[in-house]
């Protein structure tokens, strides 16, 4: 269980997050939505140990994340978290399979074994036969699937996705989100997705809506045609 309590973050005189509570359980998917500048990515960075909140705390299970040293948080991110960004996260020189194998190699797994484990993810992601392609030879959707494989390959507790479909068309975006949510549920991984797209948020179990760094009811941000179904909608208690 990843949880944040009373998270407040300021950049200079500007308060970007103000007392946000959040939690996500294994196998659960959470969307963080809001307009630009609402503090979505800052919240993700605080939860992932990239930034330290000025107030409040972040815990992964019983372990306090925000009070760890920079080196410990780096290790934690590598070992327990996975990341999917909007674009540009793959090393352009490495073939797809080595990009996926990178977290394993960083953890000390030998190259041959890491590549074999990474390659096993490719059929699941519909990428069979593309192992040796470079990122530049893949479509945007394929590139994001490789990024998803990389985020999951080391068996993380939580995957953070920052606008994972931001650079994709709606059909491809939907496919990528289905894959991401489906794999998270299947592997028991918690998933935190930052997005400004209601369609994307609608594919998650719950939604946390932010405005000016504070939680607000999700309905206040969603236009009519992109409303979420009631069973998936956020229900207040964060």
């Amino acid at each position, binding site marked *: 269980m990843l949880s944040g309590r009373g998270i407040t973050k300021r950049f200079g005189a500007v308060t970007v997050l103000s007392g946000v509570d959040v939690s996500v359980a294994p196998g659960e998917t959470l969307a963080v939505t809001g307009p630009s500048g609402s503090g979505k990515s800052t919240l993700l960075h605080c939860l992932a140990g990239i930034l330290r909140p000025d107030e409040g705390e972040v815990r992964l299970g019983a372990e306090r994340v925000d009070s760890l040293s920079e080196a410990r948080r780096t290790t934690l991110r590598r070992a327990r978290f996975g990341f999917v960004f909007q674009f*540009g996260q793959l090393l352009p020189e490495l073939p797809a399979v080595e990009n996926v194998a990178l977290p394993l190699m960083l953890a000390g797994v030998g190259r041959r074994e890491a590549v074999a484990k990474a390659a096993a993810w490719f059929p699941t992601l519909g990428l069979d036969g593309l192992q040796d392609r470079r990122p530049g030879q893949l479509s945007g959707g394929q590139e994001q699937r490789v990024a998803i494989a990389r985020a999951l390959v080391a068996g993380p507790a939580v995957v953070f996705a920052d606008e994972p479909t931001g650079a994709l068309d709606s059909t491809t975006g939907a496919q990528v989100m289905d894959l991401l949510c489906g794999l998270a549920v299947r592997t028991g991984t918690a998933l935190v997705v930052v997005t400004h797209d209601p369609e994307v948020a609608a594919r998650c179990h719950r939604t946390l809506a932010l405005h000016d760094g504070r939680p607000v009811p999700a309905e206040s941000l969603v236009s009519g045609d992109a409303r979420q179904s009631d069973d998936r909608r956020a229900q207040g208690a964060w």
Partner: protein
Amino acid sequence: MIGLSLRLLRLGGRRAWAAAGLVGAGVAVATALLMTALGALHGLDQRELRTGWRTPVAAQGDPVAQLRVRTDHAAGLPIVQVDLAALDAAAAPPPGLPRLPAPGEVWVSPALADLLHALPADALAERYPGPVTGEVGDAGLQRPDELVAVLGRAPDDPAFTAPGDSDVLPVAAFDRVEASSDALLYRSLTIVAVALVVFPVAGLLGASARLTATRRADRLATLRLLGASTRQVTTVAVAETTAVATAAAAVGVVLEWACAPLLARIPLAGGGWFTADLRPSWMVAVPVVLGVGALATLSAIGGLRRVVVSPLGVVRRQVPQRVRWIRLLGVAAALVVFGIVNAALRTVDVSAVGLVLAAGVLALFGACVLIGPLVVRVAGAWLVRRDGAASVIAGRRLLDDPRAAFRPVAGLTLAVFVAGFLAPLTAAVSGLSTEDTTTLHLRPAVVAPDLRDRAEQELGAAGIAAFLPPGTADEVLVRPGDPAVLDRARTLLGALVPGTLVQTEADRAADQAVLVGDMRRGAFVVLIGTFLVAATATGTAAAARVLDHRHTLRLLRLAGTPVQVLESARARETAAPLLVNGAIALGLGLFCASPFVAVSAVAAPSGLVLLGVVLLAGTATVAAATAASRPLLRAVTAADGSRG
């Protein structure tokens, strides 16, 4: 479009200016080094313009004067002694003199005037026919500290008419500016030095220009996608590079001008320089600035070819850049050229030796540059097969574009080549034995049987204790008991036989000793220069590579990749190709020196020490230059959550 380009630079913020500054610094240093080398050539020419008349040729028509130029010594320093008998007092005088000196007149350079004041009269002044009556102006001096005495003689002065003296020549004018054989040798060596410096400098220029261009490739590709024509994209890209490079080249010229007073202290051919001599004229500086601008432009266009041909190609980097084995044919061709040069060296005129040798050096330089990317490719393939994320990342980056990956290490590779070339040469010349500095040799033009007795008598009368070892029939040897009285003995003995200089073996070999010293000094200057260039190139390239990949590097670090892994990948990316390329370059450098000295000379302690010191210092400099971009790597990959 040029306006747009400069506007992008102006509005690009601190990072755009930092990158432009990085490139500008590289180009400025490179241009300053090139100008220093050209300044040395200019200085040698200027020296020759002022002193060419001191290497006289016998007049064909009516002579205006009789002339003899020799080198005397005092206080361990060489003094150019010009004996001049005017036959036509109205004739145009040599440079630096207001008129031809009358018999008995003594004109000395300012430095010699100081020395005359510093030494007792019997140690130097009494060798001249009278007191000092005038000054030889700068226009007649090779360098500010040159010791020159112009002694006015009558045509029938005994010092001039001693039978058998073939040094006195009738001259028709003092306008000779052709280089003496010594000057030609120095010119040749300087041309070789220029050749040794020019390749690394051109490499640095090219790398710098290319890097600014690629830094902006993604933005330019966006322009291309928006429908800008090939020409428009090229103009936008190249205008900034050209502007920065040209401005930096101008700064480089000014830098060399500003450093000229310091450079003037580096002795060559016996002493320092007039500052103005080391500043090439605007006729040279302007083409250099324009040439550097043009080279930068061409390199930038080369770097942009992929954007221009296919904008998506750069944005999405579809195709790894291949390096073909056909390069080995080029290496073979370079070796053939060197073989031809080697054969030609034995037959060409002395004045062309420098150029021919420079061609040989450039051919082998070319071989280093051709083989470099192939080595990078092999090193990349080896690294990729190893365990560890850092090795795999480094190996893949090397394989991705071996030519680009070679650029950061090209400078050091060429510097190692230079070290390999110069080490055996300096070892060989420093192996020359030092001559005897204590025994004076008195050699009259005509055998004088009583000379030894007279010398002993005169020395005794003057209270100079001396031992006279047995000499030969035409030579008297005198070894003063105290080296401090050497100059007094020299003055005294010279008076015994008018027109004769009294010298030690070391004095006679002084020119050669100066040449040996110059070659060693020159080798060090060239080595320091090439390593400076190499360090600048490596530092620039390393920093630019970080800037190029900052987005991906930052995301990797956010995802938990330790910055040490990224740094380690960078280090491997440099070290692996450098070690192999360095070894090859060292071999080629030794090979290049082989026509002149036995390569075994490098095994001499001085050669090994030089090589070791140079390689260690150079590697440390380059390592420091690479490490200098470590804070940049940490800064661009630092977590910041300001978005969203």
